[in-house]
């Protein structure tokens, strides 16, 4: 590779061709502030709109200043990041942004998580010289999942990169122009009226509070305070490897036991594990897959745990709704079992039970409100909060999370296997399904349950797993843009797979839109993934069908997987939707 000689603030250095000024500066410990810039390196996701101008630097011999985030070094380039000209331009850019920003930091959902706030602090801004009119657009609170507040939009366009380039949903783009510009759907439609999947990746990368989740914590508090209600909580697998970050713990710390103690401290009446729902999902999904394989059914079969993915294919591939598994997602399955089986066992009236889900995800909020999943009041999830919202509740309640002792989920619906834990990462659902399908198809007991070939963070992965005398061809995609590629292959009749797992978020649920903000540090996602696999390894039981309480549920209540009763409670159907 060709090396270039450059100087940054009088420091001579050599950089490979293609290096940005920003990266070159990092190499010599020169920090250049940024705002719109985002580079999720291993995920191949880059936002290089060069629009905020917070990173401008001086390049000798050139009249305009250069955006360090996107300007490539050239041989002999002499750069100054530290003179008054550059500093003043950067400061002015931030001041201008602040001059059009609501000063409600104390009440803002992103208080202390806001990158604009951090930047103002970092640049030592104590006064805004350019006061004037501020944007005054209405908030979009149309959806169950996310809130869009255009008045906090700084036009970094990161959300657009996620929505359009990564997820290929094409919902978000700039609306209006000049001072009135902000990011939103075409014609400034309400989010709920678009094909938005509510994956929440826009929220995950928004530097301010222009995009946040719908906050349901008040609803949870209200129910917890109601003596007539039996409030049950369930927690998704990806939550336990991330929530510690909200309390200063290292990313990738497994906090399952503390999490249960924390929920107990909030006085939930029962604390169950969505992992149990995941084991149940495998029972149904693996059965469905085997049925399809053995009876010439439609292949490949696609997983259906991820609600953003479900909404994506309903909008984008409405002609292919026979391909995904009919299984409900683990949270909805568990909700159904809580309001039927559990209610019966406990002698509770289903209408007195409130099911709260703690999810790493925003789409789960929208999923729980889907008409076909709420038509029977005794068969659903009532409230969904995110990992971040739970952390807020715990902070509000004064729970010292990091110092909590470990404790166990409640019995009956609290036990789970390693197979269900890995639902939290890309590749995990299909690996869990393979562990069960293997035993069921071959009649043997699989000894080596770790399928390394299904793991990793490549956007699209494929592997062939030998199951008896049959080669199970498996495809995995995370990120909806990658999913689209696999779907298009299926539509074109060139797909090579029997089963495909899809998760909407990069990394899977560990990278979900409801997780603690990663602020562009993708190592955090990797550490969460490692923790998920570590938790799996630590489990005594690592196959869903080995879960004794699952067995008991079928024996006592459901009969067999894919039975009539199972179909009634655990399966769903899909509805073709318009692409808007």
């Amino acid at each position: 590779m060709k090396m270039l000689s450059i100087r940054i603030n009088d420091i001579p250095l050599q950089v490979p061709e293609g290096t940005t000024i920003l990266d070159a500066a990092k190499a010599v410990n020169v920090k250049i502030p940024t705002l719109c810039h985002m580079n999720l390196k291993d995920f191949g996701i880059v936002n290089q709109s060069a629009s905020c101008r917070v990173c401008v630097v001086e390049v000798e011999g050139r009249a305009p200043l250069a955006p360090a985030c996107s300007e490539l070094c050239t041989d002999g380039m002499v750069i100054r990041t530290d003179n008054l000209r550059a500093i003043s331009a950067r400061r002015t850019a931030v001041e201008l942004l602040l001059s059009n920003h609501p000063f409600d930091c104390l009440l803002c959902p992103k208080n202390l998580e806001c990158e604009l706030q951090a930047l103002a602090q970092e640049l030592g801004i104590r006064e805004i010289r350019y006061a004037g009119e501020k944007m005054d657009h209405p908030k979009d609170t149309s959806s169950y999942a996310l809130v869009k507040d255009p008045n906090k939009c700084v036009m970094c366009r990161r959300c657009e990169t996620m929505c359009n380039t990564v997820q290929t949903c094409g919902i978000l783009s700039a609306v209006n122009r000049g001072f009135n510009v902000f990011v939103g759907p075409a014609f400034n439609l309400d989010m709920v009226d678009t094909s938005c999947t509510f994956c929440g990746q826009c929220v995950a990368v928004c530097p301010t509070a222009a995009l946040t989740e719908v906050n349901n914590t008040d609803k949870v508090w209200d129910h917890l305070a109601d003596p007539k209600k039996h409030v049950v909580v369930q927690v998704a697998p990806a939550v336990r490897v991330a929530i510690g970050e909200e309390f200063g713990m290292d990313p990738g710390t497994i906090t399952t036991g503390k999490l249960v103690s924390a929920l107990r401290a909030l006085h939930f009446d029962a604390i169950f594990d969505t992992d149990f729902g995941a084991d149940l999902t495998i029972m149904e999904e693996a059965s469905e897959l085997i049925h399809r394989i053995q009876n010439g059914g439609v292949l490949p079969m696609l997983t259906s745990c991820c609600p953003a993915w479900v909404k994506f294919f309903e909008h984008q591939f409405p002609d292919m709704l026979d391909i995904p598994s009919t299984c409900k997602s683990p949270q909805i399955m568990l909700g159904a079992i809580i309001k039927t089986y559990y209610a019966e066992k406990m002698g509770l009236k289903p209408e007195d039970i409130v099911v709260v889900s703690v999810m790493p995800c925003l789409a789960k909020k929208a999923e729980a409100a889907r008409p076909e999943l709420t038509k029977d009041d005794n068969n659903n999830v009532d409230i969904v909060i995110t990992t971040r919202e739970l952390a807020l509740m715990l902070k509000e309640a004064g729970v010292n999370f990091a110092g909590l002792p470990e404790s166990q989920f409640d019995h009956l619906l609290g036990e789970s296997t390693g197979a269900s834990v890995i639902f939290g990462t890309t590749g995990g659902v299909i690996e869990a399904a393979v562990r069960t399908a293997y035993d069921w198809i071959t009649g043997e007991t699989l000894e080596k349950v770790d399928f390394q070939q299904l793991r990793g963070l490549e956007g699209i992965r494929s592997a062939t797993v030998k199951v008896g005398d049959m080669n199970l061809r498996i495809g995995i995609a995370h990120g909806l843009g990658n999913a689209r590629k696999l779907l298009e292959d299926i539509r074109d009749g060139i797909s090579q797979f029997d089963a495909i797992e899809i998760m909407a978020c990069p990394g899977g649920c560990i990278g979900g839109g409801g997780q603690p903000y990663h602020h562009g540090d993708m190592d955090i996602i990797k550490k969460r993934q490692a923790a998920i696999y570590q938790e799996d390894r630590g489990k005594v039981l690592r196959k869903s069908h080995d879960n004794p309480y699952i067995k008991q549920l079928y024996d006592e209540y459901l009969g067999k997987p894919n039975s009539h009763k199972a179909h009634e409670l655990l399966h769903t159907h899909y509805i073709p939707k318009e692409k808007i």
Partner: protein
Amino acid sequence: MTTQRTHIMVCGGTGCVSADSLEIVEKFKGALSDAGYSDEVGVIKTGCFGFCGQGPIVKIHPDNVFYVKVSPDDVAEIVGEHIIKGRTVQRLLYQEPETQKKLPKHDEMSFYKKQYRIALRNCGLINPEDINEYIAFNGYEALGKALTEYTPDKVIEIMKASGLRGRGGGGFSTGLKWELTRKTVSDQKYVICNADEGDPGAFMDRSILEGDPHSVLEAMALAGYAIGAQEGIIYIRAEYPLAIKRLEVAIAQAREYGLLGKQIFETNFSFDIKIKLGAGAFVCGEETALIHSVEGNRGEPTKKPPYPAVEGYNRKPTVVNNVETLANVAPIILKGAEWFSSIGTEKSKGTKVFALAGKVNNVGLVEVPMGTTLREIIYDIGGGIIGGKKFKAVQTGGPSGGVITTLDLDTPIDYESLRAIGSMMGSGGMIVMDEDDCMVNIAKFYLEFTQDESCGKCTPCRLGTKRMFEILDKITKGEGTMDDITKLRTLGKTVKESALCGLGQTAPNPILSTLEYFYDEYLAHIQDKRCPAGACKALAKYKIIEEKCIGCTACARVCPVSCISGAPKQKHVIDEEKCIACGACYTACKFQAVLRP
């Protein structure tokens, strides 16, 4: 052309069309037919003659008689007198403002005398909807010559040697642009004509497209041949319906004649052109924004590099040339680089078309050799300031340019010298201002335009132009402080240095240049709460000078808000609280007793 003895050429440019020139055409046809002259006298709807202030214009050919301000009611007289009896209609001739002499021939008029028409060569001369007329004036000869005698490299060599630079504002060497695009290896390349003319008051590209569309088509084909492209796209704002229609007619005719399409002039070169309508966003004149718009995306600029020559439309190498630039190409190929480079100054060759507007006597389109001074344009061609008022400044470069004062009136116009005095060539808008124009207000006008036209992508332009506009608005209302001047200076400098594209980078120019040349006007607004030009309504305070007032009551009678009191033959007084500063009293007073703000 037909064998008719006389042609009545009626201007079909936008200005004249809006002053009923199409009705004039119809009336001529009717009158000629009634008189039995239809066969020997033809009526031609031409492109813009350029002398828009005197429109509608009718020129009789070959008599070379130029009638101005013709109305449909004048048609019968022109036919009866001029066509039938051969007598010039004196009252419709142009009268030179200085000499008061009536001039029948356009080339005798000072408006045309100093002009040199290359880009506008056929405007007003041919029927733009008839390809034969273009061909009759050497049309498509350059393309034929290039395709059969020159290699693409030779064409580029000629273009480079000619010294032609982009007329859209940037001033980049056209030949070099073509060469860079040619050198980029790709299976597909494109030629885009930038017809997104957006400067307020500028209409040269529109006039070329309306008056001589084939000159642009021919040049695009030449560019395609030079760079190795087979597809051309004209990006034109939908607000130019006449230009679009004439382009459509021209493209259809050129295809019919085999001058567009497959194997042009029986060579292996194939080239076709399509039209893409823009929604009229100013920023889409910036080439990367334009390309995104052509692609169907939001018209927003992206950082350069990569330049379009490397990665443009559909991520393929693309040449983007402005209309006026292209209109120069065919003559260069035909007459040679040496001819072209003999016109103009050392670094700026050829001519430039300006839309001369504002407080000059002769408003219109003028094409002058580079190096002509502003004084020549304003006083010789433009006929000086209306009503003999005092010249204050001339604004060039539209919203991206600055003001030029008396001090620099003798500056020869070229890219470098205009930049050196704080303005720029831009696309050729030239607005002349007199003593009644307030420079703070002018700066505010341009900032209102740019902040509205900003795409909103980058912070300095989105918010910087907005804040600068707000400050100027404050100053024109008499609410400014000295601190606002500092803010305008620092903000202006930062926006200029850190905005993403040319729109933002040049948006502060009207402020910075008025601050430099008319600082005293800013001070008057801020410190004395006074607008010296009397243009800022909020600051306009009219007063009656006691010593001069004789109590004639003329002012009180015309005051629309009845804020002037005083008995007849007594001194009158204006109630400043009620005064709306309309200036009616000032005009009505015959004794100069009303003091204008």
